[in-house]
């Protein structure tokens, strides 16, 4: 019987409390009288949050193990304070069958650092033409409820409509990568004054916004849930805000990098800033922060996209799109949202744990910090300050846009069902935790 006592942590940023964990479950909260034999974690000054849940992670396995594996990706997740990640479907082969999603799910369990909830492809091969076997993926051991062709847009309106309708049978959700393909042929960066000057093909905001507008209307029309991946423009915010005001069934995510970085960085032509959707303008960043604060945007999702060095060590046009996110997400959110007064820690917990778990229909993750709940927890030291040093990352890749940038905060402990995956800031040995009944207990 394992026993852990956390002393002095501020639960969701509130008053310091003691938290007793026994056999992976929170058994006492407040002042703990008797904790004989417990491992004690002194956590004065730290913030206690529910384990973070990422709706948007690229683990790259199977197929691109040179950039990330399920094991390295989930170790990175644990270092970032995550206890569950949704693994995107654009692997090789594509996660468009029960077999592939079960493989990914099983690799996650074997690694033991973080629950891995596979996302299924909406269409076969992400080609946007024929629906993948969504039902089979849902019925598999992986229990897929989130479907996405992420990396590509489901641009055919009929296919999108059918997908939305079809997943109603098992309360699924379609996570749309909103990118009108014709408007973004050859696109390299946000279309605006910087792209005009740099001579890089523009990626207009309207390419994202027009698809979002269509899809919220489609979702409302067929009465199904649509989730908007990595929303990046002020116009997208307005459309989602309007849709929500009409009661339309839409949720939306924003990445940490879109909360902080702008297209001005592209002036360096350093492909570490090349990402899909592209970095936008200062005005967009402001709108996204406000929307995250007021709930128009539901969650922060990392879009953790590892790439090997050779895919970034080149000229801009030849480089791959994407940035690492898992190991810096909470730091960026503290910097952009908490330290600016836009969000308190309870709000962070809502947007990085509770809400993403609800959208993904995870039952064992994103739970309140309360007696009887699974002990998926993260301890955060908000006063830590250090420049980002990619050499220390657990990810197999190094394509972080924050290299050398000073960001606040640090994960000191991550607990997955009571077991430390990160302790005193360092990954523990493979915890070999096999959940008896999986993440969706």
């Amino acid at each position, binding site marked *: 019987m394992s026993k852990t006592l956390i002393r002095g942590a501020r639960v969701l940023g509130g008053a310091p409390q003691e938290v007793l964990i026994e056999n992976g479950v929170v058994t006492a909260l407040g002042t703990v009288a008797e904790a004989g034999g417990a491992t004690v974690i002194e956590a004065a000054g730290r913030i206690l949050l529910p384990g973070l849940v990422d709706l948007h992670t690229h683990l790259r396995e199977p197929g691109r193990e040179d950039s990330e594996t399920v094991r390295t990706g989930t170790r990175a997740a644990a270092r970032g304070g995550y206890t569950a990640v949704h693994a995107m479907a654009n692997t090789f082969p594509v996660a468009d069958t029960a077999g592939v999603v079960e493989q990914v799910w099983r690799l996650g369990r074997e690694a033991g650092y973080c629950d891995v909830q596979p996302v299924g492809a909406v269409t076969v091969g992400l080609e946007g033409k024929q629906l993948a076997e969504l039902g089979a993926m849902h019925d598999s051991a992986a229990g897929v409820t989130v479907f996405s062709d992420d990396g590509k847009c489901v641009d055919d309106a009929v296919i999108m409509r059918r997908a939305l309708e079809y997943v109603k049978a098992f309360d699924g959700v379609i996570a749309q990568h909103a990118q009108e393909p014709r408007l973004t042929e050859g696109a390299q960066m946000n279309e605006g*004054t910087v792209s005009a000057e740099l*001579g890089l093909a523009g990626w207009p905001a309207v390419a994202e916004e027009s698809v979002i507008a269509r899809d919220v209307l489609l979702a409302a029309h067929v009465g199904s849930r649509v989730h908007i991946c990595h929303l990046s423009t002020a116009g997208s915010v307005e459309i989602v805000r309007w849709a929500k005001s009409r009661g339309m069934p839409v949720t939306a995510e924003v990445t940490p990098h879109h909360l902080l970085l702008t297209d001005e960085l592209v002036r*360096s*032509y350093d492909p570490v800033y090349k990402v899909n959707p592209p970095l936008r303008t200062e005005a967009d960043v402001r709108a996204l922060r406000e929307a995250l604060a007021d709930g128009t945007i539901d969650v922060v999702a990392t879009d953790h996209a590892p790439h090997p060095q*050779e895919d970034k060590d080149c000229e801009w046009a030849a480089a791959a799109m994407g940035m690492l996110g898992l190991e810096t997400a909470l730091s960026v959110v503290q910097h952009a949202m908490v330290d600016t007064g836009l969000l308190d820690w309870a709000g962070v917990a809502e947007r990085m744990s509770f809400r993403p778990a609800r959208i993904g229909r995870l039952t064992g993750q994103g739970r309140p910090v309360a007696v009887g709940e699974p002990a998926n927890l993260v301890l955060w030291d908000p006063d830590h300050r250090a420049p980002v040093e990619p050499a220390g990352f657990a990810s197999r890749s190094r394509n972080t846009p924050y290299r050398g940038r000073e960001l606040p905060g640090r994960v000191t402990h991550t607990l997955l069902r009571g077991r430390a995956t990160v302790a005193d800031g360092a990954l523990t040995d493979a915890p070999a935790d096999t959940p008896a009944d999986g993440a969706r207990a």
Partner: protein
Amino acid sequence: MKRHLISAADLTRDDAVLILDTAEELARLSDRPIKKLPTLRGRTVVTLFFEDSTRTRISFEAAAKRLSADVINFSAKGSSVSKGESLKDTAQTLEAMGADAVIIRHGASGAPYRLATSGWIDAAVINAGDGTHQHPTQALLDAFTVRRRLLGPDGGLGRDLSGRRITITGDILHSRVARSNVDLLSTLGAEVTLVGPPTLFPVGAEGWPCEISYDLDAVLPKSDAVMMLRVQRERMGGAFFPTEREYARRYGLDGARMARMPAHAVVMHPGPMNRGMEITAEVADSPRCTAVEQVTAGVSVRMAVLYLLLGGAQPPAGQTPAAEPRGARPRTEENH
């Protein structure tokens, strides 16, 4: 002047005038029996062309050879340009061969900037055209040509283009020539107007230091020079304009339109020309057209750039001492 020449926007007014004045002196070399100077003897200049452009390459090559540099031509076209690693590897190969300067032409915007700032090589980098970004020596030779025509070879020395009205017409969106010229000509004090169909302007051009017009006829009478950009017929596929004929009718320069220009105004074209598209044969062959002079100017301007970047002491990386910023005329104060 900096260590590299990546963008016309990097040049100050004094840098640009110094280059033009130097080019003007070097242009006189062509009247001499020996059209060669020993200045860059022992220095190695590499032309690294990822895109075909024989005109630009031989212009740089002639410039480097007239300064006695050793020239290595490296045509990288077709050798897996699409993968960036090849740029890095190629660059390091050239470095290992002792290149003092790399003149790079690349289809990807920013490739020369990347080469100069990535730490892959120490050589000076000269941008010979990157994607739809910049082509600074083209802008310099255009400025040289227009200054010569409007102010005279000697009359122009030490002077910029203040108050001169220069119109650039055509496919602005895909044109590195237009971007470079807007930067350089405005730095030199000229009033630049861009003309073309709205589809061929980049979103975001509103902030450029120039006027934007969709009406060529309205701008012609107020132009001291009109630069016609090459319009690629392939652009029709992107629905940028309906037909060649309609483009030529609205934005092409023919004899009748040329007659509406002031008597002193010149017609410029960076070449190669699409006769019948953006320019008619009548205009192209008229004495007002400077296309051939521009080619000649190219060698002088590129000699000036090579001399000013490579002829003196190499400034330490990261620093940007000018070629001596002492104004237009030399004032040597040295013990002899």
